[in-house]
């Protein structure tokens, strides 16, 4: 890696920190501006109890002071205690959920990527054959079918009718169905991306040149075509990884997977301020990092790309 690239990466890291700070700030103030509070429930707590709770969690302090305290804490990776689950730290809740969500997401994305690239390449190489058309039909269906429908169908078939796999993510083998559900969309997307990009590449002059030089079909595809046709896939891969490892609320809900996905919604409905911040920061960081990784990967795959 040359110094230019390193300079670029350094610049991007600074940008990433600024982006994160902006995300934290906007989320913090928007969150506080939303009506409602973490101690609200159908049955009212007494004013004294509410005051005690607010004091305990520092919610009685001026907003700017709360903001400052939060930033200082976050710099030390201290995201504070959950306001809803008394006695649990936000960090522990997120790590707990991420362990499952990340496992689920990474496996799903690996399957999706490998299968997607293979199927996409084959479809491109066998363009307009029955095989190509079949893949295109199936992937169109998977891309357009929402995960809650796919998940429910798989659940009914494999967990209720056939009873081959558990319906609950907490049981042994319980992650198989959610992994499949989660991987179908990115797999189909990657298949289609690879196919069109591969077709594009196969029409390029350098491929014709390689073939004319007598390079074997296998080498043309593996060395020249595939590598270049993966550039769009890399663009897609980064952000998708960020989304998928932070959990799919829908899939986790359908299969009762103990991931982090649910907290993105429940923390907001419960006004669990530290948890809202925590989940937002995790997702934002992952997206920022993955985008950076994607960009660097471009450079690795295609040295012609000028990062500056």
């Amino acid at each position: 890696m040359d110094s230019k690239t390193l300079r670029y990466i350094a610049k991007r890291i600074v940008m990433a920190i600024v982006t994160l700070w902006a995300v934290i700030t906007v989320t913090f103030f928007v969150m506080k501006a939303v009506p409602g509070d973490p101690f609200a429930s159908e049955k009212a707590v007494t004013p004294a109890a509410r005051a005690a709770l607010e004091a305990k969690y520092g919610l009685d302090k001026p907003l700017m002071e709360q903001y400052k305290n939060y930033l200082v804490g976050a710099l030390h990776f201290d995201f504070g205690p959950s306001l809803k689950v008394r006695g649990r730290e936000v960090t522990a809740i997120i790590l707990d959920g991420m362990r499952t969500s990340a496992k689920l997401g990474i496996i799903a994305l690996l399957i999706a990527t490998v299968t997607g690239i293979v199927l996409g390449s084959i479809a491109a190489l066998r363009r307009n054959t029955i095989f190509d058309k079949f893949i295109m039909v199936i992937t169109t269906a998977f891309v357009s079918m929402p995960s809650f429908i796919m998940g429910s169908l798989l659940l009914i078939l494999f967990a209720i009718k056939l009873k081959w796999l558990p319906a609950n993510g907490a049981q042994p083998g319980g992650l198989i169905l959610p992994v499949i559900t989660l991987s179908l969309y990115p797999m189909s997307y990657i298949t289609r991306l690879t196919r069109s990009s591969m077709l594009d590449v196969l029409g390029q002059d350098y491929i014709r040149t390689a073939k004319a030089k007598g390079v074997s079909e296998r080498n043309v595809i593996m060395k020249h075509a595939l590598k270049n046709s993966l550039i769009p896939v890399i663009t897609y891969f980064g952000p998708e990884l960020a989304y998928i490892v932070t959990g799919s609320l829908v899939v986790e809900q359908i299969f009762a997977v103990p991931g982090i996905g649910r907290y993105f919604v429940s923390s907001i409905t419960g006004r669990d301020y530290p948890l809202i911040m925590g989940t937002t920061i995790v997702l934002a960081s992952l997206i920022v990092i993955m985008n950076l990784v994607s960009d660097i990967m471009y450079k690795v795959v295609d040295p012609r790309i000028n990062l500056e």
Partner: protein
Amino acid sequence: MSNLTRRDMLRAFGVVSATSMLAACGGSNGGSNGGDNADGAADGGEAAAAQSIAVCLSSEPDNIDPALNSAVDGATMIVHLFAGLAKWEKDGEAFVIAPDCATELPEPVDNGDGTYTYTYTLRDGLKWSDGQDLTAADFEFAMKRASSADLGADYGYLYEVVDGYSEDGSSEINVTAVDEKTLQIVTTVVVPYWDELLAFPTFFPVREDVVANEAWATDPSTYISNGAYTMTGWDHNSVITVEKNPNYYDADAITMDKIEFYLSDDANNMLANFENGTWQLIDDVPTNEIAALKEKYPEEFVVAGQIGTYYVNWNVNKNILPAGSTLTGVEAENARAEIRRAIGLLFDRNYIVEEIGQAGQVPASSFVSMGLTEPDGSEFYENAGDAAANGYVGYYDVSADALESNFNQAVETLKKYYTFDEATGMFTDFPTIDYLYNTSEGHKAIGEYLASALAQVGITMNLENQEWNTFLNTRKAGDYTVARNGWLCDYNDPISMLDMWVSNSGNNDCQFGKGDHASVAAYSIDCTDLGYDLKVENGTWADTFDAVIALVKSEGDNSKRMALMHKAEDLLMSTGAICPLYFYTDLYMISQSVQGFFSIPLGYKFFHYTTVA
């Protein structure tokens, strides 16, 4: 315990919940098998292989610290993990309170100074799950902790009957461990539901050194309890595992060795796990599957009693008189009360429970729920209103036959205040009103029905939904005209539903005695027939309703309390600000392989004496 936070959260998301007080309609498996508990217990414990059961009540509990929990599913776990002075038991078809850690539950001694002392002796050999001795001091500590303002427990207020309780935490409650095995609690009144409170998690013991670690209730290694079970595993958001506690004094009677509480709030997922046999009990079912499930699983599908009312409430400070109305002050309030009562007659509650709710709910003609009983064993709601004079129970007739007469009566009443176009059968100058509800398919369907019923007479009601937390905020602040509401009781006494309407109550969503309404002298109450010198004519809400509730709270004679509470409900219902729709029921599904299960109307489920075939 109420469906506080969590269950209501679920409801907010459109999950069906509770239900009606139909122990009868229950036909619950618990009901038919409960009687065999004792025998099954003795045999099962020795002979058979270890028994285990997997159930799913809800998602991860926010808290299973007995003092801090405020959800029904959390309470169910806690009654397995902890033992208080008293506990719930099933005796034939009835649910009774029995001594648990206490040897007996004696009557209080009148101290002659307006206080009463309850003295309890603890059983011999009580131990914590880590082997340490459990003493009366643990109870004293736990009760003082639970009632303190510093802890900020949702249910701290239940200690309000105990001497020394103060809302602001300025004083400590009068609970004393006289010696290692004797506990004294001093109350300011003879509390009719006192024994029941002792079986409520907020009154359970915790140990000082255990709870000193704030995270104690989030991990099995630090979760030291004293009940029939100990927590042996907690895979967060997945499953909480509890196993029989050999240190529990009555361990021999416990037949179920291991209970796995799976944590999920997705009704469809619960059903899938129930249908494929993984879970033996699920506490929720998908709303749109109810009809089909009733058919497919007539034995497994259970509708049990639950004490609570689903209702609509009006904000008394919002004007609904026609634009040109010259009425002011008391006259205007009386007119609004009459209008609100009339509107309550336009709704077909049978349609709501049969076509929308579909869960065996019972049309309500009063606010205090079905399931709350009087000292003579009769239902409080059956004695509401003036059945002898009216020919129906409650404050209006909810039978299907009365639909037309109710409608006509409502229209006649409304004609006094609004312009009625005889040709179209519509009122032309009723101001447009907004109906506020929290986002959920179920609440929406009911809101749509209510709006359509009003549209028939030309009243436009717009629906406005808000996300749960915002909704709570808006409703409490009184920033609405009409809102969806619901209440589940914490203990078996009507006061738990009536005292929420006193002026300074945090749950007074109707805004009685607040804002402009504080000075409206439109109410009368007469308790002289019961021997009290409370008689007010044309008084404010504080002079009348607050005063009668204060009398209830200081009265030890339960029959007189009931009479006072009927007067309070009469007054409440005369405002028309509460429009009850139905009494809740609790739906769950239980496998036919489970014997010995029971649940009580407060919603707690008991697996102690179950066996799985």
